[in-house]
């Protein structure tokens, strides 16, 4: 008998990943609805994998930290002002803003080099910042609720907050990218 069984890997991984794949298909539907705009403004396609990645990463950072805080007893599972959460939120927000600056620089430079139709760099920055900052706020709110509810039920928040937060962040990321782009008049 082996410790690892291919059958178990398929079964356990299958449930978790299938759920996230279904949620992400809805993110795909949102993008598909704006396909013409995405194809005519290719810098949005250049940004897409990075933005989806960044929103997922922010979700992970928030989800796993809230779980750790709960386990350590530094945060109680109720909605109240907490110095640890506030400081972590400020740090995540700072990472989001710095990463947005870097991402905008890369995307604008890459589009320029490839000769893709130009968009004002400030507008690109506005879109990226709007996405990353709002995602950080959403990740915190969803992470707190998901972490607190599962912790109160006696479940391990390490198993639940990350999948919930990252799935919400993926859908919201696609939605925010498209709405921010139309708000600043790119699409």
């Amino acid at each position, binding site marked *: 008998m082996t410790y690892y069984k291919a059958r178990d890997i398929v079964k356990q991984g*299958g449930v978790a990943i299938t759920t996230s794949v279904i949620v992400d298909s809805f993110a795909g539907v949102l993008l598909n609805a704006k396909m013409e705009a995405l194809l005519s403004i290719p810098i949005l396609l250049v940004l897409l994998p990075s933005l989806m*990645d960044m929103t997922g990463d922010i979700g992970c950072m928030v989800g796993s930290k809230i779980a750790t805080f709960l386990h350590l007893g530094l945060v109680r599972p109720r909605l109240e002002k907490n110095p640890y959460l506030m400081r972590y939120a400020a740090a995540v927000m700072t990472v989001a803003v710095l990463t947005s600056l870097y991402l905008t620089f890369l995307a604008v430079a890459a589009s320029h080099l490839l000769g893709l139709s130009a968009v004002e760099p400030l507008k690109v920055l506005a879109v990226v910042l709007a996405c990353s900052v709002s995602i950080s706020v959403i990740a915190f709110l969803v992470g707190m609720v998901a972490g607190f509810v599962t912790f109160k039920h006696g479940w391990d928040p390490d198993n639940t907050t990350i999948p919930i937060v990252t799935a919400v962040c993926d859908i919201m990321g696609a939605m925010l990218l498209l709405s921010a782009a139309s708000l600043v008049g790119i699409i």
Partner: protein
Amino acid sequence: MFKQTVREGFLSQVIIQTFGIAAGVGLASMRGALEELPGMLIMIPAFLQMRGAIGGTLASRLSSALHTGVIEPRLKASRELSQNLVGTFVLNVILSGLIGCLAHFMCLLFGFKSSGLLALFLLALIAGIISNLVIMLITTVMTIKIYQRGLDPDVIMGPFVTTLGDVLSIPCLFLAALILMAAGM
């Protein structure tokens, strides 16, 4: 904690997002395929998500197996390793196929044009199998090598594999699209 979180968080984002933009440039240069194969865009977030999740869980299991001694830190075929790889491969085939079918049904549900169930199914399946073989090979070799050097693969491999998945998925989807278009689908 503030300074440390910002420093580590931003540094890892700089590395990850550099690859992310490379994936984005790939996506922007396959605009033609996205137009030719309606429904393909729908599967992209799901495909990237699956690639990251399957690679990440494989790396994480191998790290645990090396730390607990279930798998020896040598590049050698063993039953434990082969069970891991077979499980990963089967999971990948099932999920790739599912993603293709989902893309078609989402098109039907929301009234978008679709390239058809078979075309989207094959597109996701071919791209899934090619990218998975590359990811399995790189993940297995690197996790074992990193462990041999006395480094902790848990810390390094997870973020690396998910980023690698993003960069690899786009050209693999493109390749699969070229194959299908050449076959006249």
